[in-house]
């Protein structure tokens, strides 16, 4: 490999995406009219949490001027197959309800009209006769015998249950000197990107095929599911991403049932259809992070060593198991030791259906809930064992010599030095001084507390980890599953300019800039000379099941695919240039837009001319060299194997580390939490672009902070949805957020040629636990639940119960 003269990776290259975004020139889905004759869709949704649909009268809507047509779920879904998931219980999930609604906001009918205003008028004219049923809103109560049943054919609202055992957990608990037990609830939340779902679907007949433009973010493992639902060959469903996407954080995964719905409706009405979700629709019916009713038990020996863990996870999955669920509860399983040495772990996963919107990807995906349990338990243990919370973690951390580390659940941790991260956090907070301030405040009777949380950040998912939901026998029957494919292409056109394609469908993460940095280093070019296309078109770009933007896969896997293709193109350029300059390819260096003889920069030739030769004069190329310069890499990291018989699986490629340390003070009179200190330390492997890394860290923290403090998709006891606007669902604003000090250090990942690890979930996973730990320390109690609203904290600070 030839070293570039200038190393663009690691530099704070301002993003190439920005200019278009700041001048109004970036195009999002609602800006597009890719085909003529588009009509506009409004969706009628259930006002009931649970009800039979007795009848739907569409006639009043159809009569309105400007209305193309109206169709009910019953009619439209009759032509479709249900959308499958890894949970085999007999629940039929369709994009629109046919005879029964199971959550507020579930689609029941659809109207197409000349514009959106008319479509909305028309859905109001539709009359639906409902027979309301009892609602299930609590996942524990929902398992009782007298609970209403969501899916009669299952016979229970408990739709999935599996237990797992890694090591010898029973023995660990028997031998334990201390056992910490914690039961806790985690609320429903949503990452609420500022741009909502949007799609344009076009059906064309003879042969039947569908083209859909949208801000769907993958994983494209969902494309074959859509294909099956539509009953067409895979190449008859063409998905095209909008050039820009206004944020996602995972949630735009949940768009795919709507793509099926719009495809079917476009066929039904015989015209292309556009649907842009409004904010009420988004909050009430797009997707949510899982609410949980979990328990955790942690066994310790006399020295504060964590010897065993038992997780009892109960997931409030919403009304249907929508793929890729139940992945959220399985995402952390292979890494369920967190950053610790513990080897004996028992896990029970239960999935309960409730009359709420189905859950799905949201920032951190399963991580915030997992760490809330584990890191709260560590904090409680520290207090019980009278150990400093930093000390108990240090004792239990995997040592720097342990990597690569085979975790009990099968994850292979690539690289790390967790003690170093903790040290950095302690240093940045001036920990001894902070503890002294805590002691002084407590002595004065003030409610001051310190909270710590540490954990690994799995990135670049193994597509197979969700099959842990199946037994090993079921998995064997279903056929092998493994891997996390990334696709990238690098090409040089006849005039010598470079284009990179990625399959990463970003929603603001700056992939185009980093991809250009990667390719520029390897081809001796300036990043801004390189054109990067990050939007997928399933008919013209390389893609596979794992394509998309989730689980921090870009810096974990995708960059490796870009590097590989760029290297192959670079090699070809050196061969051609070597021929032209009459030296061996190994003696050619690519730098400054030229290919020159190593050590003799004056003996060179412009890269554009070298590239041109491969297009214009293929006969002049070395005999064994193919003409053209276009290379596609499809790679799946070797570590991502299939789950084994013992339910162990290498669930992700890279494992970053982060450690958040905070101090809070609570005002007893108001319940207000003041963040006194917040420090967040990260090991993301090699930093590819510091502007982007810092942006991800700060954004991840904002999500975690919002989740800790006020975000809650609330339902009342009858399943009515209470958070339908941004005045009800509170997201952090600029004055809400405290100052955050960030610390960085690097342990290079061996999993890709650049040494980078995936990152982006970051503190969205840890801030809820860290802040809850600090509040627990301030109030000296263990029963902390989120969100930490004024009311809740005030009650706890004044020892009052609910309703007092």
């Amino acid at each position, binding site marked *: 490999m030839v070293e570039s003269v200038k190393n663009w990776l690691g530099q704070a290259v301002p993003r190439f995406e920005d200019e278009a975004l700041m001048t109004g020139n970036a195009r999002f889905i609602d800006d597009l009219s890719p085909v003529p004759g588009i009509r506009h869709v409004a969706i009628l949704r259930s006002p009931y949490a649970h009800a039979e649909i007795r009848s739907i009268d569409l006639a009043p809507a159809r009569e309105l001027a400007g209305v193309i047509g109206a169709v009910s779920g019953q009619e439209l879904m009759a032509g479709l197959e249900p959308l499958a998931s890894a949970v085999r219980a007999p629940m039929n999930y369709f994009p629109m309800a046919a005879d029964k609604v199971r959550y507020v906001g579930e689609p029941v009918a659809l109207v197409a009209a000349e514009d959106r205003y008319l479509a909305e008028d028309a859905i109001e004219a539709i009359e639906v006769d409902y027979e309301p049923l009892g609602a299930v809103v609590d996942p524990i109560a929902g398992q009782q015998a007298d609970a209403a049943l969501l899916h009669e054919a299952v016979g229970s609202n408990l739709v999935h249950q599996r237990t797992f055992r890694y090591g010898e957990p029973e023995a660990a608990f028997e031998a334990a000197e201390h056992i910490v037990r914690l039961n806790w609830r985690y609320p429903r939340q949503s990452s609420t990107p*500022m741009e909502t779902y949007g799609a344009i679907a076009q059906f064309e007949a003879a042969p039947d095929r569908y083209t859909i433009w949208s801000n769907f973010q993958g994983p494209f493992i969902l494309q074959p599911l859509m294909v099956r639902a539509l009953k067409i060959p895979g190449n008859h469903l063409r998905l095209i991403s909008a050039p820009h996407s206004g944020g996602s954080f995972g949630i735009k995964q949940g768009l795919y049932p709507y793509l099926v719905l719009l495809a079917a409706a476009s066929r039904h009405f015989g015209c292309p259809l556009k649907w842009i979700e409004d904010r009420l629709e988004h909050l009430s019916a797009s997707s949510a992070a899982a609410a949980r009713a979990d328990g955790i038990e942690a066994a310790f020996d006399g020295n504060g060593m964590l010897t065993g863990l038992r997780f009892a996870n109960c997931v409030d999955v919403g009304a249907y198991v929508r793929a890729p669920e139940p992945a959220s509860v399985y995402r952390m399983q292979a890494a369920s030791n967190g950053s610790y040495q513990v080897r004996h772990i028992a896990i029970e996963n239960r999935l309960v259906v409730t009359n709420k919107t189905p859950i799905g990807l949201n920032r951190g995906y399963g991580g915030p809930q997992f760490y809330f349990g584990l890191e709260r338990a560590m904090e409680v243990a520290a207090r019980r064992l009278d150990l400093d919370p930093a000390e108990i973690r240090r004792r239990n951390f995997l040592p720097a010599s342990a990597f690569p580390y085979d975790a009990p659940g099968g994850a292979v941790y690539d690289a790390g030095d967790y003690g170093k991260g903790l040290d950095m956090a302690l240093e940045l907070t001036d920990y001894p001084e902070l503890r002294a301030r805590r002691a002084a405040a407590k002595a004065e009777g003030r409610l001051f507390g310190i909270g710590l949380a540490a954990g690994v950040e799995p990135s670049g998912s193994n597509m197979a980890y969700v099959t842990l939901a199946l037994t090993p026998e079921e998995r064997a029957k279903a056929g092998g599953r493994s891997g996390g494919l990334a696709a990238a292409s690098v090409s040089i056109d006849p005039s010598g300019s470079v284009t990179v394609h990625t399959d990463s469908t970003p929603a603001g993460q700056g992939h185009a800039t980093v991809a250009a940095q990667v390719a520029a280093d390897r081809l001796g070019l300036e990043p801004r000379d390189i054109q990067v296309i990050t939007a997928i078109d399933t008919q013209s770009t390389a893609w596979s099941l794992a394509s998309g933007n989730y689980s921090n896969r870009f810096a974990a896997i995708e960059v490796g695919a870009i590097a590989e293709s760029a290297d192959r193109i670079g090699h070809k350029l050196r061969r051609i240039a070597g021929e032209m300059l009459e030296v061996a390819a190994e003696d050619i260096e690519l730098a400054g837009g030229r290919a020159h003889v190593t050590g003799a920069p004056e003996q060179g030739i412009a890269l554009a001319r070298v590239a041109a030769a491969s297009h214009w004069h293929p006969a002049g190329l070395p005999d064994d060299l193919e003409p053209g310069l276009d290379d596609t890499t499809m790679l799946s990291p070797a570590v991502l194997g299939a789950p084994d018989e013992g339910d162990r699986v290498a669930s992700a490629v890279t494992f970053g580390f982060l450690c958040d340390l905070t101090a809070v003070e609570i005002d007893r009179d108001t319940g207000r939490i003041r963040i006194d200190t917040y420090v967040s330390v990260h090991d993301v492997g090699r930093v590819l672009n510091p502007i982007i890394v810092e942006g991800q860290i700060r954004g991840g923290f904002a999500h975690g902070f919002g989740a800790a403090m006020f975000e809650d998709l609330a339902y009342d006891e009858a399943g009515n949805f209470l958070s339908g606007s941004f005045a009800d669902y509170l997201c952090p604003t600029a004055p809400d957020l405290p100052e955050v000090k960030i610390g960085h250090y690097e342990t290079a990942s061996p999993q890709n040629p650049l040494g980078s690890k995936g990152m982006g979930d970051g503190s969205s996973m840890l801030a809820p636990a860290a802040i809850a730990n600090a509040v627990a320390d301030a109030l000296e109690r263990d029963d902390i639940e989120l969100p930490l609203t004024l009311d809740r904290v005030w009650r706890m600070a004044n020892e009052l119960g609910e309703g007092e």
Partner: protein
Amino acid sequence: MMRLGLGERRRISCTVNGVARSGFAEGRTLLSDFLRHELNLYGTHVGCEHGVCGACTVILDSRLARSCGTLAMQADGAEITTIEGLGDSDREPALREAFSRHGALQCGFCTAGVLLSVKHFLQHNPKPSDGEIRDMLSGHLCRCTGYEGMVRAIAEVAEGQP
């Protein structure tokens, strides 16, 4: 007073970014929809359509307005500045450069509204404190950045002002 029946449209004329523009609107047409789908100025974004997120902010006759909470009719005869009109004047290039360098945007969906608010804000408060900048930004929801980069960029540009 003029009355329009349901489905009836009227011509609306206004000056947008210094250029005379006109298009048709119903009585209920929102200014955000009018700008985007009638005048094809897609740089104005809609994040909530209920007046909270600030994504749709434009400058309407020298005041800030949420175009999702304004009717197109109200803009008849008005002067409007949208993101497409933030060009090379004043400190706008410096602001864009600072936003980029400080990571003040990621997906950029909120950014148009933010930049219009900042323009208006700095005209009225050329030397703001960080606290004042944060208060001004409280009218905008950004889910990507955590706002820190925006605060730094705005403070830096204000600092550099004569």
